[in-house]
């Protein structure tokens, strides 16, 4: 599975304002709403579902990366967005590092296979240090989109 299969380019946020975990998740879900990917009346419920998942263990996987996610019946297909925070946000990551790079994913419950393939793709691509570093340094949505495209085209070594 490729990033272009599920990342909504319009919703990518290069300069997150969030200072806390809660704010970061809200800001990313809001940008999916602004891009028309989710329904307005589901916004709070989706945020709550993502926070509930975080309670069971942070999705901050270290090296400044977090992949908050949930399943939600209001989405018809897998949808995700990317956010970058210059200062980083305390996300209770295992390595204690602040998170600069967020991949947020929402998927319909009846497609568990797609959900896992998307999570796998994110985690596999992010193993590449260069890709990660470039993403964290990105200053605009189009820059991030282009990096994701390059990753989809296997231009990063370990991708």
């Amino acid at each position: 599975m490729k990033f272009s299969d599920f990342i909504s380019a319009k919703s990518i946020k290069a300069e997150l304002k969030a200072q806390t975990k809660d704010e970061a998740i809200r800001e990313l879900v809001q940008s999916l709403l602004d891009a028309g990917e989710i329904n307005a009346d589901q916004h709070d419920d989706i945020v709550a579902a993502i926070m509930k998942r975080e309670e069971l263990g942070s999705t901050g996987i270290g090296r400044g990366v977090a992949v908050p996610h949930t399943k939600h019946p209001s989405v018809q297909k897998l949808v995700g967005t990317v956010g970058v925070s210059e200062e980083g946000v305390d996300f209770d990551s295992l390595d204690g590092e602040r998170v600069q790079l967020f991949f947020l994913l929402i998927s319909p419950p009846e497609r568990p296979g797609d959900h896992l393939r998307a999570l796998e793709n994110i985690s596999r691509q992010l193993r590449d240090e260069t890709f990660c570093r470039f993403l964290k340094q990105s200053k605009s949505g189009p820059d991030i989109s282009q990096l994701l495209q390059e990753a989809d085209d296997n231009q990063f070594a370990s991708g």
Partner: protein
Amino acid sequence: MLGGGTVGHWLADMLCRKRHDVTVIDIDPNIVRRINSELDVKAIVGSAAQSTVLFQGDVLSTDICLAVTGVDEVNIVAASMAKALGARRSIARVYAPAFSDLSTFDYRQHFNIDSLLSLEQLSAVTLARAIRNPDAIPLEHFARGQLEVYEMDVCPSSDAVGKKLRELKLSGGMRVGSIQREGRKWLASAEDELHVGDRISLIGMPEAVEAARSNFSTTSDRRKQQRIMIAGGGETGFHLARLLSSPDYRLTLLERDLDRCELLAKLLPDATIVHANANRRSVLEDEGGGTADFFVACTGSDESNIMAGVEARELGASRVMAVVERPDYANVVGKLGIDRVVSEREVVARQILGFLNEGAVISQTRLPNGKIGVYELEVSDRTKVTCATLADLPLSGRCLIMGIQREGFIRVPNADDILHAGDIIVALIDLDHVDEILSLFNSKSS
């Protein structure tokens, strides 16, 4: 029955009394010996996660396999194997919340298990129900308490007085379920007009119910905030606090372990978390145990719960509830001044008996003061209810569907929804028409 501990032993006994043919498998020869001597069941020694043992237990032809050992992973593996070997239904008891969360991985679906039951969550739901509104429609057990029921009186200052329900423009996340007037209770319909003093039940997603309350009553009419003290911040205490998180309650939670306290403080920002031992009388005194409207003891130890409950009662707590597992204690706790005892055995029994029912009905309860039944129904393939939208089914005035649970998520349906096979619904049904309604849920051939 895989596992013959407190829960397994009691369930085996209960199923046996209901004339089911029960086999118990446990790894501990002493437990097996005891069960064989005390109960009229077959008990064998072995690991529930081994195919040879399951085969010996004749899991291949069982109607239901219940994996209730003390180890989550064993329960999941064993229930999954039992299902693959031929058990018609298979249920695993799990403790860790991660197993019931499907955001990262759907254990239930992956292992092809019919249900993952958390007894701690079920107990919390039962306790929350006893606190919230003991006489109201019992829906809290449904979908892990995600639907809320709130009973209230229509007050004179409300704008809803004299209006029909359809004119009220209520949110889609909730419904008015029933109306009670002059001792008679009936199923609410869009054409019902509200009078001052009607007792109505609001059913739906908690935020929607909270928001809708202002339609029927002004803020000053609201119930007084109740003080709840919970002793023990384990899974049961945590879920209970989570279920009661609302401005209606002021929560104090006592927990002995400091790390757990810090976690609870994060997860329950509105509750007061106190790092203290609930079995110290001075702690109960200082933290206001004597003025609590409800004191709930759920520390994980029967003896501690009983002692804390007795202390709280003596200090003056209005109502005292305790989780007590050992059936031997059941007789004495009432005499000690504990108003309500909840045990995991009982809450799980209800769920399991539901799974043993034939046909669509999982559970049913009759409401007092009227002809309304609350039904939990499973939707099967090739039944009439799956063939049309809810609006087009002949349900009006006779059956009100309050919630649909699909893929682990619950929502309040609207008129355009179509039921799918595998959905579980909860509905209020007018008992005069129950046979016609149930026939829609049973397969066409029968």
